């Protein structure tokens, strides 16, 4: 299986040719590695990468009691998987499986630096290079291999722990148990091809050296604003449609003579329904406000990319990538919502059902956008994200903030008289349901991760309850205050004449928005990704 011994430099023999269905891969022998890190430095020198861009990394795992302690080193680069999640998640089709060597490679210059592959890979193989604002990774030294040279890491290993060998892809797909080892994420996620040789009779209690070193992930501020504001916008549009439906229903109560009512509206012989005139104005202004939120969100999101000028490329893989789908649905949502807002403002004579159809489309693309957003985060390499609580949290944000924003606009423009209180009450109802769903999902998440054994979930629990304890408590507290305060305030103020209602609602919107932004911040920083084992530092 193995080709040739390790002969560096000039003396390397020609590569053993692959037969059909085969590819090259790494073999790593944990029993031979002395943890010298030659492979890591050789990789940097081969590729001129800065110190922070580690295509290959040596980690440590340890267990047992002195003098029967075991410490093993795990040197790992890209595993050139058979089902690479970097490739399947990529919105721009940057990755491909090389037909000659089987290496998972990247198309030069196609990457837009969204970093989604770095979330998808359970081994941290793709690395964002801040000097280039794009992602790069190990390509098995493809061009050395085809020239008959060994990869730099293999050539550099003084103990013969890293080798290149070939593997039959079909057979490996059937049984890839040898890709598993202590401290290494399970091979089933991506069907890693790297074969690990693990010393026999290992202790069960082997811990990774990075187990207790909790380094929060990046907060991704642009994504915090992008997700929260798109959700607010979608929730807002849905609330507007609901308000419109309700006002329509109030003006056309079931059973009334439609003709008479239309006369009322047109001729003015009768008093218009109390509060209905400001409602019309509100229904014209509201969409623009929500559109503004969406526009701000989508503009911000572009700056999440390392290469914002190429953002349009993200649409490319809508058939496969949830990231592409998110971009697609929110683009459609923004476009349709713009048309809707303009038409609503101009009050043009349109064929009947036009606005309704348009409204339905805005709602559907918006909801699909939120769902796609949530699916982006539901990846096996990020355990604390990879569950139903992510979409619940995202939709809850939308249905908490959207109605609250609409309620504010509503209250600012109309005297919340009894006549239109139905709308207000309905919105408050939705706010409360969404808010408590959000609160419930936070608490369920906390109890779930605390009860689990997985290194990553334990890490998330530690981050939330230790390092980010204060923000986490503030997040819960502010949400709770909002949920208790809104109904109380409304009831109290309305009874005392309703003066100052918009101010109070504005304060609660501010508090709720802050809480959701903080929650999203915690969502990003507290995820502990699956990765290859790292060292003590």
């Amino acid at each position: 299986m193995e080709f040739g011994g390790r002969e560096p430099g000039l003396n390397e023999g020609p590569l053993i040719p692959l037969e059909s269905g085969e590819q090259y891969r790494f073999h790593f022998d944990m029993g031979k590695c002395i943890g010298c890190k030659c492979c890591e430095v050789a990789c940097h020198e081969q590729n001129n990468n800065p110190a922070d861009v580690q295509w290959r990394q040596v980690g440590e795992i340890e267990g047992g009691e002195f003098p029967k302690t075991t410490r093993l080193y795990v040197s790992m680069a890209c595993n050139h998987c058979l089902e690479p999640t970097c490739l399947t998640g990529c919105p721009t089709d940057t990755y491909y499986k090389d037909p000659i060597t089987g290496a998972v490679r990247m198309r030069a210059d196609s990457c837009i630096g969204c970093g989604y592959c770095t979330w998808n890979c359970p081994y941290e193989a793709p690395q964002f290079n801040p000097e280039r604002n794009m992602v790069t990774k190990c390509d098995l030294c493809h061009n050395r291999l085809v020239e008959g040279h060994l990869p730099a890491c293999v050539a550099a290993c003084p103990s013969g722990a890293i080798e290149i060998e070939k593997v039959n892809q079909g057979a490996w797909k059937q049984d890839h148990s040898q890709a598993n080892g202590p401290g290494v994420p399970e091979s089933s996620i991506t069907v890693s091809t790297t074969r690990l040789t693990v010393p026999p009779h290992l202790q069960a209690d082997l811990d990774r050296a990075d187990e207790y070193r909790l380094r929060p992930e990046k907060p991704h501020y642009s994504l915090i604003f992008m997700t929260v504001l798109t959700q607010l916008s979608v929730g807002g549009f849905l609330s507007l449609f609901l308000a419109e439906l309700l006002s329509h229903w109030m003006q056309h109560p079931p059973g009334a003579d439609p003709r008479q009512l239309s006369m009322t509206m047109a001729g003015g012989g009768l008093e218009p329904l109390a509060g209905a005139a400001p409602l019309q104005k509100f229904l014209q202004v509201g969409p623009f406000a929500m559109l503004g939120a969406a526009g701000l969100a989508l503009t911000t999101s572009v700056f999440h990319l390392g290469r914002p000028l190429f953002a349009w490329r993200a649409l490319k893989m809508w058939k496969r990538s949830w990231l592409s789908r998110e971009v697609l649905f929110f683009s459609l949502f923004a476009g349709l919502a713009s048309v809707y807002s303009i038409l609503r403002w101009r009050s043009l004579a349109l064929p009947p059902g036009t606005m309704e159809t348009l409204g339905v489309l805005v709602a559907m693309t918006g909801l699909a956008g939120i769902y796609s957003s949530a699916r982006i985060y539901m990846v096996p390499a990020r355990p604390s994200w990879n569950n139903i609580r992510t979409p619940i949290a995202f939709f809850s944000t939308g249905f908490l903030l959207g109605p609250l924003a609409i309620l504010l606009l509503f209250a600012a423009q109309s005297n919340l008289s009894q006549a239109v209180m139905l709308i207000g009450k309905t919105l408050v109802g939705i706010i409360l349901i969404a808010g408590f769903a959000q609160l419930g999902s936070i608490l369920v998440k906390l109890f779930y991760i605390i009860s689990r054994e997985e290194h990553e979930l334990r890490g998330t629990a530690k981050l939330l309850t230790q390092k980010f304890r204060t923000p986490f408590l503030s997040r819960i507290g502010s949400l709770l205050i909002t949920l208790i305060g809104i109904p109380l305030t409304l009831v109290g103020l309305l009874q005392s004449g309703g003066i100052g209602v918009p101010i109070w609602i504005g304060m609660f919107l501010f508090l709720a928005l802050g809480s959701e932004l903080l929650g999203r911040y915690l969502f990003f920083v507290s995820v502990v990704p699956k990765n290859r084992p790292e060292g003590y530092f």
Partner: protein
Amino acid sequence: MKSILKFLGLDTAQEKYRYGYDPQYGYMSQAKIPDHWVPTTCGYCSVGCGMFLGVKEGRAVSVRGDPDHPVNEGVLCPKGLSEHHAIHAEGRALYPLLKVKGKLRRLPWDQALDTLVDRFVRIQRNYGSQAMGILSTGQLVTEEFYTLGKLIQLGFKTTHYDGNTTLCMSSAVSGYKRSFGSDGPPGAYQDLEVADVVFLIGANIADNHPILWEHLKKNKNRTLIVADPRLSKTAMMADVYLPLQPHTDIALINGLMHLTIRNGRIDPDYIREHTTGFQELAAHLKKYTPEFVAKITGLPTDLLEKTALLYGNAKAAFTGWTMGVNHSTQGTETVNAINTLSLITGNVGRPGASPFSITGQCNAMGTREAGFTSSLPGYRKFEEASHREELARLWGVSVKEIPQKRGWAYPDIVEGIIKGVIKGLWVIGTNPFVSYPNQELLHDAISRLEFLVVQDGFHPTPTTEVADLVLPAAIWGEKEGTFTNSERRVSKVNRAVAAPGEAKTDFKIFLEVAKRLGCYEKLFANWHTPKDAYDEWRLVSRGRLCDYWDITYEKLEHERGMQWGGARLYTDGVFQTEDGKAKLWAIECHEMPEKPSPGFPFILNTGRTVEHWHTRTKTGRIEVLEKMSPEAWVEINPADAKKLKLAQHEAVRVLSQRGRINKVHVRITGIVQPGHVFIPFHYIEACANNLTVAEFDPISREPNYKQCAVRIEKI
């Protein structure tokens, strides 16, 4: 504009990340493909790896191992692989600097050298010629050591000249001298490939000499035995691990000798023909029964029996050691015990069979042979009249000018400063303000000097910062000469790039000083290049054990280094003693100088990590290495951590009777025994030598770095 293009994603630094094809090493980063490769030898440790330094437009851009070099066969350790970064690192010393009113100010070379000579000469005139001391290094080229030795001993006429090699390998030197009659490691790296037992004592080669694994890897039948109080990377790889208590190596070796004699696994013919002192030895070993040894070392008797059988039954046993042995008040004696074990089992001078000191610095061997510190050049003895006469004749000087005894060793020079005997000090290529034990004492000493010159490739370092005069020196890659490695292999070091700023080679500085001192014509007539020194050194070493006569620069370039004395020494069983026989030593095992006490309950062990070299003057400036090992840590056993309620990564304070580390992060790990802690010594920011004890081997004067008593406090 560039930043806007980068922000938008139009500029992805494609040029920097382009690949190309190097005719010698194949496909690699274009930026690393040099205009030409310069063959040379690594400048860090004394494994002595052959390498090529890639030069592009006058800058060193890459390093690659030499696949044809017998030492490393193309591989290099992480320090070697990134060594070119040291040359162009931040913080190189660029100009001579003189302290004026408390501040270091730039001055021309001429004035700097005049100042050096004037001040030292004035000090010598006022206080006597011995009032000047020199602390040098193991990292200059042999040509420079040879030149410096003559300049100091015959030019300045002071004998208080030593190197940081005393902090490193002097116990091996003294031990070899006492056992075999001369310094000189008898074995070769090839022994690692053919020995059936490889016994490593206090040697963590996986961290400190990883390229030796290249040789060990080839040995499919070996049994690797490692004795170390700490379960180091190397111990982890052992077939038999001996987790002995610190400072008990002598008891272990005595115990093994006791059992080997009892098992009848000694070599009576070899003992009779090639050694003296067996009777005394055998009598002395009687009490070192397995039970007695088990009590001292903490090793179970069955493990001792097993080890003795493995060692005794080996056709060829290799015993290697490093700082775990040398860094001890009984370092020399431990070396003697190891040599004695090897001798009585006939494990000297045969393939695979050798006691072998794995040296520290790249050219510690060179200074031992040519440097004029612990012995006269060519392993000649100060006290031997014929040796002095021979040298005087070779140099054309009066025999009276050759000193009759060795001057002070490193710690005695420091002591001499405190006593007010030494008033002027010249420090060359070493950084005592990280590496010397008991930093407080050293600070006191340095503050008493009238004049301190520090000659280094880097500034600022903790030592250049306190200098009165800083001389900027060229470093590895910027100068020519030879290094000699642990296995006595002389290898060529070549100049690839020009030194930065006004930095000069140490060789040039020494000659310039000699001219101003007025001894150039007498000692160095017509010397201009290192080769002039080397050719004289070849002549001076001719006929000695370390005979360089046949090893010319030309041959070195072709042969990828040559071992003086052949592959192995003492193949004929004839030693450098008067009777030609090796001396067997009956050694008693003493306790460590500072034992743990209620106030300081932990034993502190200090050592190294693979990413860093010594005081991090170079490696601390190389990003890829710093990233891997950015700060010091203290290893503590889980049981002790629990008692002290310490959490992984928690910052603690470590104190000894002498000093403290104010902040260092805890690494809870089962690789240290309960009651022991370990701190790497590389880091000035958490300097382990604030804590270490200033106790020294009475023979070699090597410090006892490996054990002292400390306390750990929560912050």
